[in-house]
């Protein structure tokens, strides 16, 4: 009996991915849960395991292909009479007529939550099916263009009257997704001036390029600079280093700033918000998740620490070390990179006196941390040697006013310099 292997629901809001590797070949004998392909999605690489024991009959994808959730990627010949279930529940054979339902039950526990979602959620339709049930407001020529570019119009908003999707909408969208990158201005032939080489962007690069240009175009950015005296904070850090290390983490400037940002977000709710222009609303979030930018070999990754307000410094430090390690070893799950409300980007380890980070839209603010250094600071009438850290805060001026931006960053600096400031 031939069974289809489909791309499962990988994570919420993830509809597409790139086949990073095909791990089996036609004719291979595979067992249940054996990884079949490696799929690179919105910033994570995941294995798609086999749902059955059987022999690979057909492979419908190859490395580099873009695939959608629920797309059939392989056909597996499952031996008749042999239950697909390795646990050997023979009764299930009689229900083979319902091929779609059965294998789902047999996935690992970890997956079962996602599977439940799949049942309730409307099945994502393949391009070929969508036209049937949905009224896509686009002319026949535009719908055709979309099919040529592999764009699912049902996921697009049109710019025309009544939401009509125009040819330009499709072309712009296609440029954004990079599936058929359209250059707005033609690139010159660089080889005229010397040798060049070309390299395909990996998925992380594509996503970064797309989301940052989107953020840059939609968010009116303002960057506020400030400096904090971290002399006392450094003393505190050194004093408690061992304690935190025993708890499994590393007490760093980042983990301290993370803790303080958690408090700041509670005090300044508009920094823990998103803008909904369609409905002319501001969405306030009543949870406090903070993303931390991590520099990895594959590119920039932003794992998210959840419920920062509920965690101790020791917990936060431990979690940060863990997330950073996972990011660098490609072990982050998609879930661990979603749901952030605010981001901290610490480039201090590399250097620099200040920078203007780009807001990770739909978040509304990002805190940049640069390298701290000793400075002569006038304390009273005396110059003192103090350690000073430059901070920069970029924010979405649509919902955050300049004074609020200055206040927010100043509050963070105050707390760094004098923790009693929290009391205000």
């Amino acid at each position, binding site marked *: 009996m031939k069974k289809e292997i489909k791309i499962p629901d990988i994570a919420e809001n993830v509809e597409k991915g790139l086949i990073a590797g095909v791990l089996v070949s036609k004719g291979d004998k595979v067992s249940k849960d054996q990884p079949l392909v490696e799929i690179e999605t919105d910033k994570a690489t995941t294995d798609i395991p086999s749902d059955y024991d059987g022999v690979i009959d057909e492979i419908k994808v190859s490395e580099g292909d873009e695939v959608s959730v629920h797309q059939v990627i392989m056909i597996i010949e499952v031996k008749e009479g042999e239950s697909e279930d390795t646990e050997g529940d023979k009764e299930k054979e009689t229900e083979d007529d319902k091929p779609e339902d059965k294998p789902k039950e047999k996935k690992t526990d970890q997956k079962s939550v996602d599977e439940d979602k799949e049942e309730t959620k409307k099945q994502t339709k393949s391009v*070929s*099916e969508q*036209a*049937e049930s949905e*009224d*896509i*407001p*686009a*002319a*026949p020529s535009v*719908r*055709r*263009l979309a*099919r*040529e570019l592999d764009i699912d119009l049902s996921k697009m908003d*049109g710019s*025309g*009257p*009544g*939401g*009509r*999707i125009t040819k330009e909408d499709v072309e712009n969208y296609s440029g954004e997704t990079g599936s058929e990158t359209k250059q707005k201005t033609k690139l010159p032939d660089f080889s005229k001036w010397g040798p060049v080489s070309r390299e395909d962007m990996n998925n992380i690069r594509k996503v970064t390029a797309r989301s940052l240009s989107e953020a840059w175009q939609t968010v009116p950015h303002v960057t506020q600079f400030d400096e904090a005296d971290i002399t006392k904070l450094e003393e505190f850090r050194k004093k408690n280093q061992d304690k935190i290390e025993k708890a499994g983490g590393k007490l760093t400037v980042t983990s301290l700033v993370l803790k303080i940002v958690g408090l700041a977000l509670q005090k300044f709710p508009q920094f823990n918000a998103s803008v909904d222009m369609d409905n002319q609303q501001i969405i306030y979030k009543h949870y406090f998740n903070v993303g931390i930018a991590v520099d990895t070999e594959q590119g920039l990754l932003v794992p998210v620490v959840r419920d920062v307000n509920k965690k101790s410094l020791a917990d936060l430090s431990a979690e940060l070390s863990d997330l950073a390690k996972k990011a660098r070893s490609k072990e982050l799950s998609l879930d661990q990179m979603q749901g952030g409300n605010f981001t901290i980007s610490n480039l201090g380890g590399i250097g620099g006196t200040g920078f203007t980070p780009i807001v990770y839209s739909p978040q509304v603010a990002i805190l940049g941390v640069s390298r701290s250094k000793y400075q002569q600071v006038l304390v009273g009438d005396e110059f003192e040697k103090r350690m000073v850290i430059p901070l920069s805060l970029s924010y979405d001026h649509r919902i955050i006013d300049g004074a609020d931006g200055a206040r927010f960053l100043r509050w963070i600096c105050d707390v760094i310099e004098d923790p009693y400031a929290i009391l205000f």
Partner: protein
Amino acid sequence: MSEKTHDLIIIGAGPGGYRAAFMAADLGLNVTLIDPELNPGGVCLYRGCIPTKALLHLAKIKTDAEHAGDLGIKFSAPQIDIEKVIDWKNKVVKQLTGGLGQLIKARKINYIRGRVKFVSSNTLELVSEKDNKEEITFEKAIIATGAKPATLPGIDIESEHLLNSEKALDLKEIPKKMLIIGAGYIGLEMATIYQALGSEVSVVELTKDFMPGMDTDLVAEYKKANKDFFKDVLLETRVEEIKEQGKQLEVSFKDKDDKSFKKKYDKVLVAVGQKPNSGNLGLENTNIEQDEKGFIKVNKKQQTNNENIFAIGDIAGQPLLAHKASYEGVVAVEAITGKKAALNDAKVIPAVVYTEPEIATCGLSEKEAKEKNIDYKIVKFPWVASGRAVAMNEKNGFTKLLIDKENERVLGAGIVGRNAGDMISELALAIEMAATAEDIARTIHPHPTLAETIMESAEMFYGHAAHVFTKK
């Protein structure tokens, strides 16, 4: 011929089959088109759309002449020379099918007269017109064998007085009393023809009203214009039996109260729908799947379960309309030639009933809009307010649009009135393009035309149509 494998064989040369053949040839494919007739055309040209329209044209002339007296031009009673009428109709058919024959030659399409049957997924048995049998193989095939008139279940008499839509077009004499079984579009078009030719026409319909499934206001407008048209209108009535009695047919009816009665007619026309010509195709020798009614199941690329075989037109399911077949023919050929974008994603398939007045529809009906939970508004422009309609002495008719209140897009349209069929394409285009009512309202329409009623109905959505006053 039998040694070589054909690149593409198209079975059936109706509007679907010949369109597909022309398209394939234009794209450079080697095409073989097989059909029993001398020239392409299929039922549509030989025994359907075209001959009925030729006869309906005559009906229109006659009705106009009769009504001209009211306007000051009196004609004497028209005399009908039925032989000449049939000749004229045949001439139309011959001219059009002959023209298609020329186009086949010009495109170097290999046209074979004969019938085929599948022997396997890539072999056909061809029975040529001279009854020679041979097997031919193919890479790809398109089935476009169409449909034929369905018979009335339980009625199995053979009689020269019992007609179907095909035979009804080849009549040698005009029956005095005629019964049409089925008040769908074919039945009503035939009624229009025969009534004009002088028959006394009655109609019997199993359901509650004419043209089941159509918005009731459209049907009501047709009925209003045809109040004294039929001798008898027998709704919710079943035909129980038909018996030959001398030169007549005696029909036994049973109405909704289970009351039985009998009536005699010179001719009885059965127009109770169409069934697919899938019976003798040898589909069982392929992997092609059919539905319970015998229509071939296809995907959005018109591909059957047997991946090198495609099906288009009537054989591939409802609605059974020539223009749908042609469209699907193009989709199938594009899919066969590997065009990535090939897909049947038509939003609307307009439909026209060529009665007098004509009824044309496209897009969503009110019932469908309700089922889809769309918050819509109906705007209806009566033709009595149209200068052109009045100047044409058209007393009936209206143009209505179904508009999505939320985004103001036109989702459906219905027109009753003279030439409605020629007007509906504007709305088909509007819906395909996702036009809003405003797009139509702000498009200058020439004056005075019937098409202005489309613009004015769109303006009604905003409450400012010139020729109807909307109280606010």
